[in-house]
């Protein structure tokens, strides 16, 4: 059960501490760059989750749970899903169909640009939801009896 916490080897600790912020940043890049390259919300969310899980595996607990607290898993999952749903509902306010982002008129923006923006928000929502789901599963798997 002693899964989380400081890993005995200093090499592993330092390597993971150095790598994890860059892995998380690469995840953010993958989410933001989904329009132009491979990836998007799913892959990016998983990368950010890895950036959060690595410190949990190797660093002292008070440190790793301060960077990414326990509540952030369920919160990110819910907020991501909500973001997706709200973006889907926004066109319905102007009488269009669910998830038809292009129907929302933003002054100074072509319809294609609004759809571009809608895709970006959806990707961020999916990324948050996947990140939250992965972190939630990991946290609950490594839950110890005394901190239930």
């Amino acid at each position, binding site marked *: *059960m*002693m*899964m989380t916490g400081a890993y005995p080897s200093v090499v592993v600790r330092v390597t993971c501490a150095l790598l994890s912020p860059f892995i998380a940043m690469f995840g953010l890049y*993958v989410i933001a760059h*989904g*329009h*132009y*390259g*491979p*990836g*998007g*919300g*799913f*892959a990016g969310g*998983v*990368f950010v*989750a*890895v950036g959060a*899980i690595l410190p949990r*595996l190797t660093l002292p607990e008070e440190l790793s749970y301060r960077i990414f607290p326990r509540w952030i*898993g*369920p919160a990110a*999952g*819910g907020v*991501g*899903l909500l973001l*997706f*749903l709200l973006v*889907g509902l926004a066109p319905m306010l102007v009488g269009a169909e*669910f*998830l038809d*982002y*292009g129907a929302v008129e933003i002054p100074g923006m072509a319809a*294609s*640009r609004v*759809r*571009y923006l*809608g*895709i970006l928000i*959806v*990707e961020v*929502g*999916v990324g948050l*939801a*996947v990140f*939250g*789901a*992965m972190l*939630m*599963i*990991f*946290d*609950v*798997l*490594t*839950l110890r*009896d005394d901190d*239930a």
Partner: protein
Amino acid sequence: MIVALDVILFLILLATAVLALQVKDLLAAVSLLAGYSLFAALLFAGVSAVDVALVEAALGAGVTGVLFIAAILATARRSDAPSDRRRRLVVLPLIVAFVAMMLFASTGLPDRGDPEAPAQLGVSQTYLADSLADTETPNVVTSLLADYRSLDTLGETMVIVTAALSAALVLARRGEVPAWPQRRGGTDPGGGGGGPDPDAPDRAPEAGSAALADPGGHVAAWSPTGESPTETDNEPDPEERP
């Protein structure tokens, strides 16, 4: 794509899969599975499915391994010996028949990249032609997933969040002795009822938890007997995501 490279990758893929099934140390099996996912990702990349390859590499070779290891540390590290070797006599012919059926069916599939394939003739032409003008998104996969077919993606996201929540709800309670009484056979219609309960207010929470445990019908059945093997079973596996 290079045929020789594909064949080599396929052979490594098969080898890792067979080894992962054979090995008794589950940690070794998990590393083999991660390797399997990595080579599967390479194969996907070989057929230009870069988006799928990226997800497979991140999920299959990355997070899934960590989640499996966490599950192993929470349960047992070695897999039990097969209980009955005669079972193979039944299972092996079934597997062979299934593989033969699949291979036979695959002869009816169109060739890869065939412009006359049904998948190429339908609505996909419109997506490929209009994606850039409609959404200013050069990567058609992204505009397909997040715009044209965003309802599918919404459903998928819901499935993932729901699966993680159910895993959390089931696993957070492990180790507790179930407070509800055993209800064998009483799981069918009366589970949601709770009709006769209002006259006994002090029993209400207990009845509530029993009703909560009922929908699966499994919880009350497995908890007292032995919980370690079922914990891994309950983990919603990210690999199952399409």
